[in-house]
């Protein structure tokens, strides 16, 4: 088939496809309008009735009280949960004391050497300076607490994840259970895992660690499975031909060749764990996360920034190290590891003799005061520049009054709740079919029965505003980078940087400019989700084959025509993936922003963590978040599938 033919058939396919799509869209839209009108005119439903609240909170609260009272006596604790808690806690403490035994200067030194070796001189110097800076701003001890907790989390994730990945690779029925579970675990905002574990274990590092493990587990399992599945068959045959047992083939041939993939999984797992640092501090993880939280509560933006920067440095160093190890080739790798090992032991011995394990106070210097000054200045000068009505304050008010509040009112009150459920079901029907429609309807009813209707609509409204803003910026930028390699290269490190930053840390600078409230949460979520929007748009457009470009051009299509008629339709599935990712990221961030005045479900969940009498409500909010996330995720995935061109026969 020539390229021209290909374009014609694709175009024909798209046209018939889009006619169907248009018909379905009109059908769906008119059904929604009729639904709203009917309920509006002939009934007086408003907010989901309070009396229908099944009151799940009360039994949860009772369970919580029972658990607290029986923590020392019941067999569930004495035989099962307490030993687990003690073992994990002992492990974290032990690791922390080992980490602290090494002399302080070994950390910047090892980081510098390691990054120099794997990434070059510049990265090495930056690594050395970065790690030293953590000590300089007096966050040394907190960093060790965080590092120990993270290391144990990642270790446990790996110890569980690699065998689970092997099991999923070996056994299709295991894979069929594991894969969707992992997808769901990673889709949920990490925040929701805190609540059930606080319920079971109370506050402390152990529930923090378990939540982190659950949130971070997915990539290492998935990539272990993928790595094993992509080992070249011929090497496996060669091993078999030498009479290797299955176990020998796995150990000597498959796993070593899957190693890069497994390391990539460990890297992603580490990054996900790092993104939980601040969130886990809500339930007593301690460390840097706690410094961020406490400073935010005291509106000490300076100290919060310092701790945030320490987290970012730690995340970037860990990221670079683990990708460095994952991509190193075996010859160089072995040599580098030997060198590093030698360097570490020399430094450790020297430090052990000198006993230099505290970061010297004489080197302390803090930039928090300057940040606080800048914050004050920003508040005084940027919030409302010269009382002109221009500034971050009026901007916040404008967005709140014109978009967020009206949308919230529309969703929670103006559209009657049965119509909202109807809309959800029509969308489900349109996107996939009756099963999804029923699922969405049930989930929305459940949200209502939990008594979380209004809060969920609040969160949904914030999410929608964030998603629209992100796509409005992200898609055009993605279109530009796909046509301009220079711009893409220039933007890449910036986008990478924003993706490496743990989500909560993003809130810190935004709050300095916009104070607390709904708007900083939405803005932080837009920043957080932008890289995904740009990346997937760029990816989708770049996947359009060059010959299709050329064919379209040979017909004399203008750039705009090419983009509208050929490239965007062909990239549509990737764009829908972008929408899916953006929605999930924004939802996660909006929930977190509940902590800084964002309101909605997030705030309710945080209250549940903070106050023991509100645990039940927090639990309900957590379930509502899970339901909302599932609805949005399924719906956008279904739309993405619909947009895929028919598969080749």
């Amino acid at each position, binding site marked *: 088939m020539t390229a021209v033919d290909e374009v014609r058939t694709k175009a024909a396919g798209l046209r018939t496809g889009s006619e169907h799509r248009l018909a379905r869209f009109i059908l769906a839209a008119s059904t929604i309008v009729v639904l709203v009108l009917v309920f509006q005119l002939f009934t007086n439903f408003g907010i989901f009735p309070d009396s229908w609240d099944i009151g799940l909170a009360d039994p949860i609260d009772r369970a919580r009280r029972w658990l607290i009272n029986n923590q020392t006596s019941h067999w569930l604790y004495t035989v099962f949960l307490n030993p687990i808690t003690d073992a994990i806690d002992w492990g974290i403490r032990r690791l922390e004391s080992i980490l602290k035994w090494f002399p302080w200067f070994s950390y910047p030194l090892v980081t510098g050497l390691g990054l120099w070796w794997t990434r070059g001189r510049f990265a090495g110097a930056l690594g050395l300076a970065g790690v030293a800076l953590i000590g300089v701003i007096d966050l040394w001890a907190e960093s060790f607490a965080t590092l120990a907790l993270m290391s144990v989390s990642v270790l446990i994730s790996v110890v569980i994840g690699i065998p689970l990945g092997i099991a999923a690779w070996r056994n299709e029925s295991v894979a069929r259970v594991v894969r969707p579970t992992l997808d769901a675990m990673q889709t949920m905002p990490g925040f929701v895992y805190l609540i059930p574990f606080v319920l079971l274990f109370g506050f402390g590092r152990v529930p923090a660690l378990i939540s982190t493990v659950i949130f971070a587990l997915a990539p290492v399992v998935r990539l272990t499975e993928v790595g094993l599945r992509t080992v070249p068959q*011929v090497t496996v045959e*060669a091993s078999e*031909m030498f009479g*290797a047992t299955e176990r020998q083939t796995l150990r000597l041939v498959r796993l070593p*060749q899957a190693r890069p993939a497994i390391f990539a999984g460990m890297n992603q797992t580490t990054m996900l764990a790092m993104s939980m640092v601040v969130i886990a501090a809500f339930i007593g993880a301690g460390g840097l996360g706690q410094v961020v939280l406490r400073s935010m509560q005291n509106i000490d933006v300076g100290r919060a920034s310092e701790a945030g920067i320490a987290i970012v440095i730690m995340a970037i160093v860990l990221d670079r190290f683990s990708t460095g190890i994952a991509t190193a080739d075996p010859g160089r790798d072995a040599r580098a590891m030997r060198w590093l090992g030698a360097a570490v032991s020399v430094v450790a011995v020297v430090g052990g003799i000198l006993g230099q394990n505290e970061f010297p106070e004489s080197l302390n210097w803090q930039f928090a005061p300057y940040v606080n000054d800048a914050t004050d200045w920003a508040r005084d000068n940027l919030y409302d520049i010269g009382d002109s009505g221009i500034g971050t304050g009026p901007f916040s008010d404008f967005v709140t009054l014109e978009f967020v509040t009206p949308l919230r009112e529309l969703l929670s009150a103006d559209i009657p709740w049965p119509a909202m459920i109807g809309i959800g079901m029509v969308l489900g029907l349109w996107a996939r079919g009756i099963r999804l429609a029923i699922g969405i309807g049930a989930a929305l009813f459940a949200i209502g029965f939990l008594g979380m209707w209004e809060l969920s609509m609040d969160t949904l409204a914030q999410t929608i505003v964030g998603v629209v803003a992100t796509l409005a910026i992200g898609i055009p930028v993605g279109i530009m980078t796909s046509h301009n390699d220079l711009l893409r290269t220039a933007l890449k490190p910036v986008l990478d940087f924003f993706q490496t930053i743990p989500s909560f840390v993003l809130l810190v600078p935004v709050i300095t400019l916009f104070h607390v409230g709904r708007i900083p949460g939405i803005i932080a979520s837009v920043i957080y989700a932008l890289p995904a929007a740009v990346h997937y748009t760029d990816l989708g457009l770049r996947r359009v084959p060059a010959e299709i470009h050329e064919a379209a051009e040979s017909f004399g299509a203008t750039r705009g025509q090419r983009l509208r008629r050929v490239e965007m339709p062909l990239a549509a599935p990737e764009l829908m993936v972008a929408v899916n990712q953006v929605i999930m990221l924004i939802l996660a961030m909006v929930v977190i922003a509940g902590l800084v005045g964002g309101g909605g479900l997030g705030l309710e969940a945080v209250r549940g963590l903070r106050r023991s009498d509100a645990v039940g409500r927090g639990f309900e909010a957590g379930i509502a978040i899970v339901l909302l996330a599932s609805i949005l995720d399924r719906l956008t995935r279904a739309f993405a599938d619909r947009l895929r061109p028919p598969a080749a026969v």
Partner: protein
Amino acid sequence: MDTASQSAQVSVEGVWKVFGRKVSEAQAMAKNGASREEIQTATGSVVAVRDISFDVAPGETFVVMGLSGSGKSTLIRCVSHLVEPSEGRVEVCGTELTRADSATLRDLRRQKMAMVFQHFGLFPHRKVVDNVAYGLEVQGIERQERHERAQELLDTVGLEGWGDHYPQQLSGGMQQRVGLARALAVDPEVLFFDEPFSALDPLIRRDMQDELIDLQLKLQRTLVFITHDFAEALKLADRIAIMNDGAFVQVGTPVEILTEPADDYVRAFTQDAPVAKVLQACSLMQPLDGRGVSPDWPQVSETTPLEDALPHLLGSTNPVVVCDEQNTPVGLLQGDDVASVISENRG
């Protein structure tokens, strides 16, 4: 059991391999003469190997030659039991693989057989020396001992000093030498070659072929060799099997294939074959049968390629005397016979 299969080191009897669900239906259709395409449209199953039998004697080089899709790769995997045949019997070194349990099969593979692969199948995460030592490692031989043995073999295949490199740092030809050394390291009686040289460029390929011939002269192992290159088959084989559509079309010595192609399919290959290079004086000579020879007539040995005997024939009308290893005349090579074979193969 007949004597041939008793003395044979590899014995294959009525082997079938059908990929897909409807194995018996597909086989029944094949037995009624249906082609692979017909069977596939009817049953959705692919008959890759249909009813193949052959024996390979100790020290023999048996080459299976076929084009891509002829089923030759599946056949060698059935014989080495990397793939379970749908039906039939495979015996290697007196053990029936098709009945063996996994422990027996494993022991047989550790002690008696080895395989060299088309795309080398080297382990990219292991140094060259550890690749070569792999077979010994899975047998549980100590590191010191297996490395010594691996070094020996690297010397044998001309790779001394390359042991500490990784396979991907070597050229294609060198990589396949590693593959060969790895197979030889376990001192196997039977060696399977799955198109080992087809990924190499022509000059390297010729070197590797020559080297394999030299090695085989020294080692005298039993080789089953798969190729799509007819010239390679002629060069290496004691016997050749031509395979098409899952079945053997003809089995015979290179000379038999060249001089008596079974059908047009085989003849198509022989047309471009370098007949004068492949055929040796002994294959076209007429036995002496007591006839006298003149001392004036030129003499060649039995193994002289035809192309080297040709100048003698072209120079005169006299026949050429063919002598055995003791230099005793055993036959006569006539210009007419040679001309007819060459012209027929060109025809």
